[in-house]
């Protein structure tokens, strides 16, 4: 099957007053239709930047893609013009973000914002091209149709009494409900790919469980493809089928979920899993990763993890490890594993 999303050797730089930050240094990522891929990593590892490169929402300048390709359904995204991008985003992508408060306009009702999203997607998307051009008298009709669709979306995302609550303002919604509204907006254009950037980080655990369950059920119901970005390994274990672990601008390990937790290969992945306080870890048994994430302006040569790695070898300081197959559908970028395994 052809890949829905293919990111190849993506390099991204940010020009700052202190120098050039090498934010992404050769990211490779593939997704197929129906995939639920978790992208995990700590602050500043480039997981959000990787995801934002798909809808091309990275501000340029100061950002600059120096190398690499991003293709979606066979189309090259990086060479599209801005207006082509707009219709591409409307018809293929949905995004939800971390903070449901700042992503809704407090001055407008949910109805205005959700109906706008539906109408915008219809007008820009390829599926209903120019639908309301020349039909100005029917704008009211379109709005009421769009409102029906909006209520339908609210029902789909588990907001009770959508037909009444649609007239309310964002402040009348709780955090979990606001996140559901944003998911409804993201689904308005019937997207092929849903990019969820830390969708549950700002929420309480009980609400987090509700939202994750909602995303899982949408995957089943609508056959969505989801790129779930998170720093929480527990969230990944619960919701994803495949995981890609990022460290300092590169994907260091990629594998099916079970395999990654049972058999982590990259020392960073192991460190990350050991750092989570789990059931049977007793007092003093938690192992952190020494040191901190590297500076992106002067990243360490070779493997960027080597200054914090206990198993670092001479070669790690000189050369960047390539992704090597270490098992069925399991790849790791580390010199600990022989090339032909």
């Amino acid at each position, binding site marked *: 099957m052809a890949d829905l999303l293919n990111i190849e050797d993506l390099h991204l730089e940010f020009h700052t007053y202190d120098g050039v930050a090498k934010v992404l240094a050769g990211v490779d990522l593939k997704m197929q239709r129906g995939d639920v891929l978790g992208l995990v990593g700590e602050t500043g590892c480039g997981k959000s930047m990787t995801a934002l490169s798909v809808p091309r929402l990275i501000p340029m300048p100061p950002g600059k893609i120096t190398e690499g390709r991003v293709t979606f359904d066979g189309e090259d995204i990086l060479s599209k013009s801005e207006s082509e991008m707009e219709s591409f985003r409307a018809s293929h992508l949905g995004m939800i973000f971390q903070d449901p408060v700042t992503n809704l306009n407090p001055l407008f009702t949910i109805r205005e914002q959700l109906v706008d999203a539906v109408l915008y997607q219809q007008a820009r998307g390829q599926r209903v091209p120019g639908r309301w051009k020349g039909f100005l008298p029917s704008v009211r009709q379109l709005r009421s149709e769009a409102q029906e669709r909006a209520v339908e979306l609210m029902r789909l995302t588990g907001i009770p009494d959508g037909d009444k609550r649609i007239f309310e303002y964002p402040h009348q919604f709780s955090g979990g409900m606001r996140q559901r509204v944003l998911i409804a907006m993201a689904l308005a254009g019937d997207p092929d790919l849903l990019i969820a950037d830390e969708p549950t980080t700002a929420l309480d655990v*009980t609400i987090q469980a509700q939202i994750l369950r909602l995303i899982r059920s949408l995957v089943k119901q609508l056959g969505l493809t989801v790129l779930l970005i998170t720093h929480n390994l527990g*969230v990944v274990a619960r919701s994803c089928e495949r995981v890609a672990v990022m460290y300092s601008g590169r994907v260091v390990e990629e594998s099916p979920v079970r395999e990654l*937790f049972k058999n982590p290969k990259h020392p960073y992945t192991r460190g*990350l899993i050991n750092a989570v306080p*789990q059931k049977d870890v007793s007092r003093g048994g938690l192992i*952190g990763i020494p040191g*901190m994430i590297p500076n992106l302006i002067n990243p360490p040569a070779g493997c960027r993890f080597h200054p914090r790695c206990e198993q670092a070898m001479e070669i790690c300081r000189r050369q960047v490890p390539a992704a090597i197959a270490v098992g069925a559908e399991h790849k790791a970028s580390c010199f600990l594993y022989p090339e032909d395994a």
Partner: protein
Amino acid sequence: MSRLLEINHLKKYFPIRGGLLNRQVADFRAVDDVSFTLQEGKTLGLVGESGSGKTTIGKCILRLLEPTSGQILYDGQDITHIKARELRRLRSEIQMIYQAPAASLNGRMTVGQIIGEPLWIHEKLRGDDARDRVLELMTVVGLKEEHYYRYPHEFSGGQQQRIGIARALAVQPRLIVLDEPTSALDVSVQAQILNLLQDLQDQFDLTYLFISHDLGVVRYMCDEVALLYLGKIVEVAKTEVIFEEPKHPYTQALISAIPEPDPDLQREEIIIRGDLSHTFPQGGCPFAPRCHAEKLASCDSVLPPLLEADQGHLVACHLHPALSASSASEPA
């Protein structure tokens, strides 16, 4: 083993104002009749969702907020209403570490000044003496000597939290209120800080009140856990007991919602409905509208008291009656 801290029927109400003359129209019950004790050298976890009142309790203990009613006993002494002069002495015994390390450090002071300030206030230490103590504290929390003249913004989140910890330790406190000390940090750094806190506890015989919403972290850090829901304690027990045999439906749901990094883990996932809402039926159990357990007639009408349902295991739920009638009067 002695009781270092004892809280009796603590209440903190905030006024809700409204109407034409902006009079007080109602109370917002942030903390509503909370009682617990903390043994010297132990760690008590205070767990709850946002809005459950856990930080308010922490602030009341430091007297950063004046409690509406109730009693706070520190080392046998009632500190609920002590005067400013005594309060100052008390503050060298009780310290607090905050959630957002960047916001809790003054950006215009160097690390040396930040850690040295409490030494000047409480012990009138200055100059070389203070400098020596500060450097010693910095080594204890894992900072380097060359960090002395740097400013907070030059540090990562984890390092900033170490500065906050050093500042709290400067006055040699016995009790530290830790308000979500690691929730702003990445996991690999969180592990470092949690281990540091445990080492310090062993080294200096500290007592911790550990406020957190992360049950995984609480399980790792605490000896005993108290669960809060809408300003009320719903369950208290030893950590192992809470995680093995949670009795209150809310606790059960919270534990089942911990995202464990183990894809093979088979467990029943309890998803509780709705959100935390302060408009629960007056008189009834605050958790009743979201509860997934079997519903009794009394759930909506009678507030369940916190009773000893098992040895050392207190639960506020009608489904779990007290061990015996005599233990019902006074929760330990």
